[in-house]
């Protein structure tokens, strides 16, 4: 078969589709897909409503002209689809923001194609194309969906599609409908297949060959350019600096400022702050502090006032002491609620797609936004994440050293800590490497201290580290991490305090990390000559391996199941099952005494290997059963005679006799005579058919 034949065969018009329900189901799927895209802002609601009306009109027109679609409609559809494609390529060619900006033109293209195609959908195959296009539209919408609300549209679209597919089978099979149980089975099978793939497939990754959206949200301008929000004292800014009198910085966390007061811990809410799409979880670094003052951390070199002016992507300078030769990791941050004007990232930020023409970058890698990052802001960072293993860190013998002034700053202490030094030396007495010392100190902290946020504020002027290590040894992450940093510095190891967020919980549906306000965290960065600044967290063990959607979903389901009260659920399920069984048993029970006798005869015959034949009357069957035994009894014949007299002659015996006959039929067994074999051969495919004996009296 040549290519022309294949094309010609593919273009052969199909039989006209007469099912209105199938058309309605396809229409519903398309409408849901358009609404989903409109809800995500990919097309305007007015455009979406217009498209919905046109698709509805087109569907009605297609149904009306399904037998003889006008030739000019097909021509118009072809012209319209071609025009939409031309417009799409023109729009794609003119966008400058990158491949991600293709989403909106692609949505418009698909909606346009669906609209024009809806006027020429004569056959079932065309309706299948409509369903496929709606699936594509949903996928385009899903590409930008970052929350679970999109799930409502997915569920609605899946229901409409399932309806359309089953209607397609109904139409194709000449009226064959799927029963309710079959539908449940199909739904379960489809869901199981989808869930199986979902569990097996790895999490999606972000290709590094595309550009990313960068969108300014509802943040507003920052009063003091380059300053951290709240530090300038401007009331219009996003937050205010934390101090003992006012703990109301962003999300309640006091660390996203020019200083970090370790004596205080704000009351952190559970509000969703960020959603992060990343290839692997990391600590989302906001800023680092290198100057310890006994109670607070400070930055020795604040963020410069001179911004980095560039268009996205910003190529960021390498921070001091960093070794940016790790794995490239892309993170897209979706700001859900107003946060600090810090640009969060994983370890060493290399490139930044940001919705402004400038950013402020400090020497330690801290990036400050010139605009407020309110809800709706989106930015993407390409970071270099260290892939060094503990063994590699232990074997690190790189002669590279920090510049003397930097090293002095990273080992700075406000005053000698003799007790801390003695403690650190005693803990690391057997360790010869930096990594070994760090691990020993972390292990000691884990074994001898306790995490708690409910501690009273430290007395004024008290040293946090002394109070923590030699007091009750109860504190929160800032105090614990500061203690580690000071112990390391006392041993001559460069260390600094980092603040930001832990990765947050991974959502296997959206493939996003949900970062809440109470995920704000402080940890320690230790410098290794060959690998730069490495994160160490003495407070909590945060898994930083790439996520598996399946494993996460299973874990979530397991957690959910563990919360279900098993005993009540089992009791309710058992009761429901009992009701169902009872109802089914009552429905299948013979309604009259005559039917019960007939059913007993059939059961007895079946046990004796003599099922009733299709064309066999009850009397003939009873005679055959009686003939199996020698001497031949007449029990079944007598009972059949009474049944037929009742069913066809209207001679109902008294109720007592009815009961007696039912009991007798139930007790009577068919005993084939010995050596005589069974009389007539059983019909090859004679199934056991229910007996119809007319209307007998109910007992």
């Amino acid at each position, binding site marked *: 078969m040549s290519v022309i034949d294949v094309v010609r065969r593919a273009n052969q018009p199909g039989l006209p589709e007469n099912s209105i329900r199938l058309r309605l189901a396809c229409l519903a799927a398309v409408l849901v897909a358009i609404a989903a895209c409109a809800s995500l802002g990919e097309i305007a609601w007015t455009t979406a409503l217009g498209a919905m009306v046109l698709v509805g009109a087109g569907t009605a027109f297609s149904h009306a002209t399904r037998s003889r679609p006008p030739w000019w409609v097909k021509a118009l559809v072809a012209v319209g689809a071609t025009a939409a494609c031309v417009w799409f390529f023109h729009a794609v060619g003119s966008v400058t923001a990158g491949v991600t900006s293709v989403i909106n033109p692609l949505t418009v293209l698909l909606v346009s194609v669906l609209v024009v195609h809806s006027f020429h959908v004569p056959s079932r195959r065309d309706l299948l194309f409509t369903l*496929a296009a709606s699936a594509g539209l949903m996928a385009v919408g899903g590409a930008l969906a970052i929350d679970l609300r999109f799930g409502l549209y997915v569920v609605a679209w899946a229901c409409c*599609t399932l309806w359309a597919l*089953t209607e397609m*089978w109904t139409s194709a*099979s000449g*009226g064959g409908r799927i029963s309710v149980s079959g539908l449940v089975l199909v739904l379960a099978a489809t869901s199981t297949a989808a*869930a199986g793939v979902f569990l097996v497939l*790895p999490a999606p990754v972000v290709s590094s060959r595309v550009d990313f959206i960068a969108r300014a949200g509802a943040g507003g301008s920052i009063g003091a350019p380059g300053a951290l929000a709240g530090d300038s004292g401007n009331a219009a800014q996003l937050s205010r600096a934390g101090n003992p009198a006012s703990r109301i910085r962003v999300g309640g966390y006091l660390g996203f400022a020019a200083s970090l007061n370790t004596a205080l811990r704000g009351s952190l809410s559970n509000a969703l702050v960020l959603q992060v799409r990343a290839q692997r979880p990391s600590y989302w670094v906001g800023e680092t502090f290198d100057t310890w003052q006994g109670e607070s951390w400070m930055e020795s070199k604040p963020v410069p006032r001179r911004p980095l002016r560039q268009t996205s992507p910003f190529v960021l300078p390498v921070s001091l002491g960093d070794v940016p030769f790790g794995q490239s990791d892309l993170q897209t941050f979706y700001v859900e609620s107003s946060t600090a004007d810090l640009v969060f990232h994983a370890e060493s930020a290399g490139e930044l797609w940001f919705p402004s023409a400038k950013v402020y970058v400090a020497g330690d890698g801290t990036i400050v936004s010139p605009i407020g990052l309110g809800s709706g802001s989106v930015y993407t960072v390409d970071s270099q994440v260290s892939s060094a293993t503990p063994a590699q860190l232990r074997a690190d013998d790189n002669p590279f050293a920090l510049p003397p002034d930097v090293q002095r700053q990273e080992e700075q202490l406000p005053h000698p800590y003799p007790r801390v030094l003695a403690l650190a030396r005693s803990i690391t007495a057997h360790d010869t490497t930096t990594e070994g010392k760090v691990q020993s100190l972390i292990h000691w902290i884990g074994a001898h201290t306790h995490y708690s946020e409910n501690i009273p504020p430290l007395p004024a002027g008290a040293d946090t580290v002394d109070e923590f290590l030699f007091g009750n040894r109860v504190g929160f992450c800032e105090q614990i991490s500061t203690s580690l940093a000071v112990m390391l510095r006392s041993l001559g190891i460069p260390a600094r305090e980092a603040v930001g967020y832990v990765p947050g919980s991974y959502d296997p549906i959206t493939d*996003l990390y949900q970062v809440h306000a109470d995920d704000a965290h402080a940890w320690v960065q230790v410098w290794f000559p060959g690998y730069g600044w490495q994160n160490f967290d003495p407070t909590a063990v945060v898994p930083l391996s790439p996520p598996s959607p399946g494993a996460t979903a299973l874990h979530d389901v397991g957690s959910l199941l563990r919360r279900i009260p098993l005993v009540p659920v089992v009791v309710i399920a058992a009761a429901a099952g009992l009701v169902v069984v009872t109802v089914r048993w009552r429905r299948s029970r013979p309604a009259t005494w005559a039917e019960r006798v007939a059913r007993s005869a059939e059961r007895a015959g079946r046990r004796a290997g003599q099922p009733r034949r299709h064309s066999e009357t009850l009397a003939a069957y009873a005679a055959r059963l009686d003939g199996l035994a020698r001497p031949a009894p007449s029990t079944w014949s007598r009972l059949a005679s009474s049944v037929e007299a009742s069913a066809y002659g209207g001679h109902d015996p008294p109720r007592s006799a009815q009961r007696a006959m039912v009991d007798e039929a139930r007790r009577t067994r068919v005993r084939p005579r010995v050596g005589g074999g069974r009389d007539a051969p059983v019909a090859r495919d004679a199934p056991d058919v229910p007996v119809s004996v007319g209307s007998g009296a109910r007992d």
Partner: protein
Amino acid sequence: MVASVLIIGLWWLIAHNAGSGWVQLLGDLVFGALLIGIVGPFVIVTRARIGLRSAPGDAVAGLPALVRVESRSRLRVRPVEPPGPDVFVGPGGRRGPVDEIVTLVPTHRGVHESITLDIASAAPFALQWWTKRVHVPLPSALHVSPHCGWAQPVPRRPDDGTGDVHEQPRAEEGLPRGARPYVPGDARRLVHWRSTAHAGRLMVREVEQPAAEPVTITVELPMDPDAAERVAEGALGSVVRLLEGGTPVLLGTRERSGPVLGPVADRRSAGRRLARAVAGGVADGKARGVGSTPGRHAGP
């Protein structure tokens, strides 16, 4: 199916590299639907059982024969041997019987111990049709007789004109033998008025059927199926014409078991004999075709 695999592969490739969980989830749903749409019909067809509720014993080539089949699942049934149009059997939308009538239109005469059906299903999504060929044994053999063709003229022997009776009476009348009193039910045309007047009561003629000489028709089918079909059609036409004329017929054919010569009483039995007939001569050295010989023939 290939298209489905390509679509899913492309979808996952895009979804995996686009970094969107929703796109991947939608791809999983589409995969689930395609998988069930492709595998479901295969499972249904593999597990399908076709039962035969009733089947005729006789059929005529070129004319429909109705067979009632039943199935627990909705299937498209296409008769292959004998052929016939597609029909859907099995549970439909409404509750009711699950059996349907399948029309067979045999194109050639023959005997079928079973019928061959192509059963297919695309449930539950009508995305992919799977077909399986099944052989359903018939409760009794289906004899497909040839179509009744034009009757060939029966050659007469030279002494056919000699005999006591020059003109054969009509089969339903017979030859008058005497008269007897009328009994209710006798035809009015049999009333013998002269005897009635003589006897003083209503008298009717008594007739008897003459013992006609049977005609032996020997059918030798050629090897070519189409030519054999035409020969059989002509033979059946001749047999039917003779039987309608009241002439007994001895039909000689070759069946698988060997030559068979025997009387045929009616069209049905003649059709069955011709349905069973195979190519080859009844006796060696005879030309292919239909030969007829008035007079008694000894059986083989």
